[in-house]
């Protein structure tokens, strides 16, 4: 392992090797879609998300990644899957938290939003169109006599 690979940069608490392992792990948790429309979870910025929203969890993530074998990054996704599956049972609590944060991070990403049919950007000021609805559906309710109890 080179010194560079062991270096922890200011912005990222993981060294290069750990970053590669993390990317390989995330790529198993949410792989890219078969049609290429949706990115892999390795392509969204989990580290920045955690630093912003769940910094307390970072040490547990770093330790989990560190515990993965160095060879993990060289395996095909299908070969990594059983290793991650084992991790999900041997370290269920930490793995559950990883899933929570990966899902949250992934589904707040603008590329993902667009890929699932949402418009780009935050809800405000864009807004959404919602149909008023067919009020003739109320006809049978309107035909009912009043149903509140008189006092």
């Amino acid at each position: 392992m080179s010194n560079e690979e062991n270096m922890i940069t200011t912005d990222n608490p993981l060294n290069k090797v750990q970053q590669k392992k993390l990317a390989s792990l995330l790529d198993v948790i949410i792989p890219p879609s078969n049609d290429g429309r949706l990115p892999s979870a390795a392509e969204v910025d989990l580290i920045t998300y955690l630093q912003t929203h769940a910094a307390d969890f970072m040490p547990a993530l770093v330790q989990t990644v560190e515990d993965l074998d160095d060879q993990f990054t060289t395996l095909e996704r299908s070969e990594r899957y059983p290793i991650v599956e084992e991790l999900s049972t041997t370290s269920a609590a930490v793995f559950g938290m990883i899933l929570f944060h990966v899902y949250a991070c992934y589904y707040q990403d603008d590329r993902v939003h667009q890929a699932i049919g949402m418009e780009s950007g935050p809800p405000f000021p864009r807004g959404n169109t919602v149909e008023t609805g067919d009020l003739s559906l109320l006809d049978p309710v309107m035909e009912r006599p009043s149903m509140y109890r008189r006092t």
Partner: protein
Amino acid sequence: MSDEPVDVLIIGAGASGAAVAWSLADTRMRILCLEQGDWVNSAEFPSTKQDWEVQQFKDFNIDPNVRAHDTDYPINNDNSPITVVNFNGVGGGTILYAAHFPRLHPSDFKVKSLDGVADDWPVDYDQLEPYFALNDRKMGVSGLSGDPAYPPKQPPLPHIPLGLVGETVAKGYNKLGWHWWPSDSAIISQPYEGRDKCLNLGPCMSGCSQGAKSSTDITYWPEAIRAGVELRTRCRVREITVDDNGMANGVIYYDPEGNEQHQKAEVVVMACNGVGTPRILLNSRSEQFPDGLANSSGLVGKNLMFHPVGFVQGLFDERLDSHKGPQGCCILSKEFYETDLSRGFVRGYNMQISRGAGPVGTALQGLGTGNIPWGPGHHEAFEQRFDHVASIGILCEDLPEEHNTVTLDPELVDSDGIPAPKISYTMSENSRKMLEHGLARGEEALKAAGAKEIVAGGPLGPAGWHLLGTARMGDDPKNSVVNSWGRSHDVKNLFIVDGSIFVTAGGLNPTSTIQALALYIADTMKKNLANLFD
């Protein structure tokens, strides 16, 4: 900061405090409101940001113990399956509420007479009706007249859109022949009083960036302040002080710098919700009031009522665009609201149809239920669920029981050292049966609407929005804390205007009724100014 005596001191700038401040402003009395939180800045609400859903995990969490702002106070929920949720700031709970805005029904004020349980209120629907209507206009309420579940009423604005969720579920209700109606919503569907209409952003419950949701910081407060009411933020009241005659003469509070201050007042009005009000009263012990202020009945902090909430969620084949539109406001059903003892319980529940979650919420719910797996199949499972869900909330009436309490925690304190509230609550057998019934009927409704997969559960834990009954109204000082117009039986210049004065809870969101009561009390105070303390 002036410490000159004021005529009226209001504690709390939320739903009821704002309404009473606005109403009393035309007396030209010197009115001061002390609020422990800040003004909120709508530009900072999550819906202005890309990570709008994730922000609800922490800074905009509905649970003060999770949010843990310095303007929040901790709450010990260890002895309750339902935990208290709130917001502390100008607007109070209306900042993060869903704005589902039904009124209590006429029968809700007469539960003893009609059903032989709990007690009748000392006021009734007819007395409050003008104040309901006034409040609808002041807040800006959207709805549709003609609902057979109510006496005639006319919401000032057209109902908010049903959308595909509303239409789909409505068809299910129609198949069953059950009642449904577009919800009265404190969300403006048209431009109104200088505010622009709802944009259907979705996440109403983390604040409305558009200002279309009617929170009191943008409805009552601007008018009240223009009329001369002073509102001081970051001022947390510790206790109400009394003079030698047992009359309230002011409050001790901590100013924004944490310094202890004594504010003198001729009249004190409490608007701190069903947890905050008993907390302050119980902390206002003195030689004259060793059990806390206004507590000769022993009922301050007792009879805490929540609304136990269940949720039924249906998955549909067709896309419902369910993340679009006001989250908690769509349609409702009162089919099971009024008492029918053949159901196995007394009183009833509201069915509140709500829209679906955003992508993060969908993914995490799917993670929790195991329906959205990690690894292969993830995208397909997500796609089946996102925007394909409709939900029914079952909101049950909780009856008052003295063992459900708010007390002072012997150890836990807030950042000013004031004892924190401790909640002790168990759900009654009646509420449990009601919830089971509601969950089953919710499944039936969603099945009739075409849901292919249904999950149901309750009571939800972090759902203690509605904090009621802990300083109840009544005519008899032996079994009530305040009289029929909110005045303490024991301390004639102390008034309570928040949800603590509810005698019973009804089975629906209480903000409309809380505010109507506050306006009614303020009006009665004005009519009795000459002999307010007699």
